[in-house]
């Protein structure tokens, strides 16, 4: 009766095309495949959507325009005019995470963003990029970011280390938030799926919960992409405007 529930099995990486360069394993895995699919789909959406350049947009064009305007609006309101040049970066991040999350919701596919190394790489790019932007824009003045203004000197002794610490853990919180959301969500789906399969006719109840959970996961997939993008915007705004 007991079907063994292995909810973490869905996260195993399989080599589709084994490939080695020297001692380095660069195999084309299922994670890499899903990333390729995400990139191809995004490129297709933008390229096909903007091919006709109609004054009255069709379905594809308005989808492409909506995603463009959504991110452009977000950058404009959160970073200000100085953020215009970083729009392509934020747009790429948002679309990639959004598509990776949504593709992961298709049964038997693979969630790229449930791998901590993927989300950490994205967050590290944001962190290093933002730091470089701040240093290039403000030079030595960038360190003012860690010194809150209008604070008495004795308090600074306490506040500066806190500010410094909260700046340095940004890549970790940013990556773990996305990773934990995806991991927990998909594990939960698998656990309830396992319940539904193992208790026979009564399994209709966990199945119903699972359907609701899928709806929640769709919300979370979009929301986490939005949160990642908006936090990138806020960090950029810190580096550019030095709050």
């Amino acid at each position, binding site marked *: 009766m007991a079907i063994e529930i*292995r*909810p*973490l099995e869905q996260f195993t990486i399989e080599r589709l095309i084994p490939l080695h360069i020297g001692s380095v394993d660069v195999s084309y895995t299922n994670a890499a495949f899903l990333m390729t699919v995400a990139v191809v789909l995004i490129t297709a959406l933008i390229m096909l959507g903007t091919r006709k350049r109609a004054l009255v947009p069709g379905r594809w064009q308005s989808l492409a325009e909506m995603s463009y305007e959504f991110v452009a609006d977000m950058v404009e309101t959160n970073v200000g005019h100085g953020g215009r040049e970083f729009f392509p970066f934020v747009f790429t991040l948002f679309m990639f995470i959004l598509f990776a999350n949504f593709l992961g919701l298709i049964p038997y596919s693979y969630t790229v963003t449930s791998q901590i190394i993927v989300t950490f790489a994205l967050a590290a790019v944001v962190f290093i990029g933002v730091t470089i932007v701040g240093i290039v824009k403000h030079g030595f003045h960038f360190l003012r970011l860690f010194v809150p203004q209008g604070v008495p000197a004795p308090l600074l002794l306490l506040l500066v280390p806190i500010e410094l610490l909260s700046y340095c853990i940004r890549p970790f919180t940013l990556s*773990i*938030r996305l*990773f*934990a*959301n995806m*991991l*927990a969500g998909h*594990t939960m789906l698998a656990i309830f799926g396992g319940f539904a399969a193992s208790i026979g006719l009564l399994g209709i109840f966990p199945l119903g919960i699972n359907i609701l959970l899928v709806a929640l996961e769709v919300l*979370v997939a979009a*929301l*986490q992409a*939005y*949160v990642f993008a*908006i936090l990138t915007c806020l960090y950029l705004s810190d580096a550019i405007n030095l709050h």
Partner: protein
Amino acid sequence: MDLASAKMIGAGLACIALVGAGIGIGNVFSALINSVARNPAAQGQVQPFAFLGFALAEATGLFGLAIAFLILFVF
């Protein structure tokens, strides 16, 4: 105590983190309802922040849940 039962207890303890997430999410949406009830015109401006707050509050609870899963299924 053997390892299997210790794992179960540990996973259960890790799930206490969800209390905080529940309080946080409840707070976020109660504040949203409060502010929209006072000033319905502000809904468009306030709602994105509410969902941002929801996602941030939910994530902290999920850290605990992820730890519970790790304890149960990885080690």
